């Protein structure tokens, strides 16, 4: 009953603003308000002011760097929350539901084949890692940036624990330790701002980093430092969440 009413209300709420769509700008109009006022400033000045051809990067880590700092903090916060929420020690791992369980052979190994470990570990993971680092340091020139790099590193770990037995992954980080490391990401970001304050500027004013180089270079340094922070934060968080979730759940190849 309640649900029906809600759905009806929702349908109404979809239809009513239909009349009000006139207030929104025409899609693709180069003269619409969002495309002119602030946006033009970013496009025109990004290269000059921030030394960053990728304007999106310029926006997120320079003009609106403060947002991104807290975005990284949100990531860290998510990791921390997962650690806390899953902190209680369950008596045993939740068994996989019967519909998902597979038979094991006489030796206790699962009877289905997994991906080839060697290929994964020796070929795909290094490629992803290298790509992550490329994305990290090239964020200001081409696509990508700290966040994508961090997520890629997280994916490497994901592959790692998927392919190798998860009790003994190649780089093994307990979840609380991972969360602590993730905290250093936003901290690097915040400290970059503190450095600019110490250099006599306002918060995150990269021009004022106390180094004797040209201001464009300073922006590059600032952006790189910040991107590294984001990378650490995001990678740490993804590893944390993965670890915390995996700890709880039993898989077919577990030794019970």
């Amino acid at each position, binding site marked *: 009953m309640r649900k029906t009413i809600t759905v009806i209300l929702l349908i109404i709420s979809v239809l009513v*603003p239909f009349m*009000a769509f*006139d*207030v*929104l*700008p025409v899609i693709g109009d180069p003269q*619409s*308000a*969002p*495309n*002119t*006022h*602030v*946006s033009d*400033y*970013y496009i025109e000045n990004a290269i000059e002011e921030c030394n960053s051809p990728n304007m999106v990067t310029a926006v997120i880590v*320079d*003009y*609106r*760097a*403060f*947002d991104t700092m*807290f*975005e990284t*903090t*949100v990531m*860290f*916060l*998510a990791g*921390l*929350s997962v*650690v*806390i*929420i899953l*902190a209680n020690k369950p008596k045993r791992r939740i068994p996989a539901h019967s519909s998902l369980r597979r038979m094991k052979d006489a030796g206790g190994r699962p009877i289905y084949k997994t991906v080839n470990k060697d290929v994964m570990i020796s070929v795909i993971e290094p490629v992803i890692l290298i790509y992550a680092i490329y994305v990290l340091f090239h964020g200001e020139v081409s696509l990508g940036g700290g966040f994508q790099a961090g997520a890629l590193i997280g994916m490497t770990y994901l592959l790692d624990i998927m392919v190798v037995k998860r009790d003994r992954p190649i780089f093994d980080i307990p979840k*609380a*330790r991972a*969360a*602590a490391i993730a*905290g*250093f990401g*936003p*901290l690097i970001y*915040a*400290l970059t*701002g*503190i450095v600019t*304050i110490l250099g006599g*500027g*306002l*918060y*995150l*004013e*990269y*021009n004022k980093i106390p180094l004797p180089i040209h201001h464009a270079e300073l922006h590059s340094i600032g952006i790189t430092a910040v991107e590294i922070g984001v990378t650490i934060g995001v990678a740490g968080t993804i590893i944390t969440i993965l670890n915390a979730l995996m700890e709880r759940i039993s898989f077919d190849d577990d030794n019970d």
Partner: protein
Amino acid sequence: MIENIPVLIVLLPLCSALLCLALTAVSRNLGIFAVKLSCLASFVLSCIQLQMVVTGGTIHYAIGNYAAPYGIEFVIDSLNAVLLVCFSLMGFLTILFAENFGNEKRPMLVGAACAETALLITGILGMTSTGDVFNLYVFLEITSLSAYCLISLGGSRGVVSAYRYMLVGTVAATLYLLGIGVLYSVTGTLNMGDMREILDQGGYDGAMLTAMCFLIPAFGIKMALFPFHGWQPSAYTHAEPGSRPLITGVMGKVPALAMFRFVYCIYGTDFRFVRIGLILLGIFSVFGMLYGSLMAMGQTDIRKILAYSSVAQMGYISLGFAIGTPIALAGAFLHMLGHVFMKGGLFFCTGAIRYKFGTVDINEFGRIYKKMPLTCGLLTAAALSMIGIPPTAGFFSKWYLALGAAGQHEWIYIIILVISSLLNAVYFFRLIEKVFIRQSSELRTRWESEVLELPLTIIIPVVICFIAIFGLGLFNVRIVDILLMTLEGVGL
């Protein structure tokens, strides 16, 4: 250095929270100590900032030194300077208080919970200071995420309420994003001041109305205004006891401030449909005040009583916004300040009683005042303030609200204020009766009694809340003057 105060207030708790886990790994108390220190520093800095704002006028702090519409800006006017002082003080007290509720055996967990609380404080302080609508969203998410986590720490019920709150809260955040999206689509800016200037040129009524349709539910959900309050009682009830004063006392206020910013600072009272919005808000708050009080009467769990009473008290605040004259707005903000200490104080008491006796059922509170006179003193003062007995803070905020309503000839609001405070009286005097009059039940203290009735870290918050309730009442004019420095220009 001094000009960086606005951002440092937000940064200090953040940095300490980020470091907290690592420091706890080094030594078990180091992390908590860092958080405490940073919260104290942030409180002191916000006091200095208030002084600066009062003498020097509004502070605009452009982060990264990019001028207003291009970069993110912190705008500290007298209004949020006062609120910052209040919120950071409450944050500090909560951090002090929370220490007593950790699991002694697992220091990492204690450190992590402490970091969560510090991040909640960061989010709250950031939301209060920011002058950028999208930055507000980010801070809102920080606040909400840490709140989800802290609520989920309160046992299995807490987990379920946290999950429900998370779904509803995300809907609210999404609606908020949609609202600012619509505003962005017509103004092309995200800065509040700039947005105001562009909207003032006129001709954007349709977009503003559409955005308002999204924003009022969004803030309504976040501040637990009446028809959107569904998540609130169980979340407040089952939150982690240590951080509950902060969650219940402060977390609902900040979206209310944001709502005020949108309605009065961005839209302005010249907006054609503002009356409709205000009447709607008035209806919500009137029903909220009645509903919250009526629901609170039926409860026996003190946490539930207080949670429902929060619904009613939020009604007072939004009633002030609905009346809309400067004096009523000042009343609403005074109530916001007062309610931080009243509700926070009541939850400090609840926590203290729970800490000592392990009960939350008011039927077991018989004659508890013999054992905890200080706590019960605060309990009584806060309860009287909720009812609105002079000379506590609650009376004076009610006074300004009623005065504003009389100025607008909204007599119905005065009647509702009277009825609501009488309803409040019913359940708060029931509580007082239980504490002072009921025959003593066999409560066994859970801890060996010390020299003081409670550890010092609980007594300090209790005493400060007690002082604040009366201080805000007796010296309200000073605060109202400071608030009016900003509010004079924005009201009806």
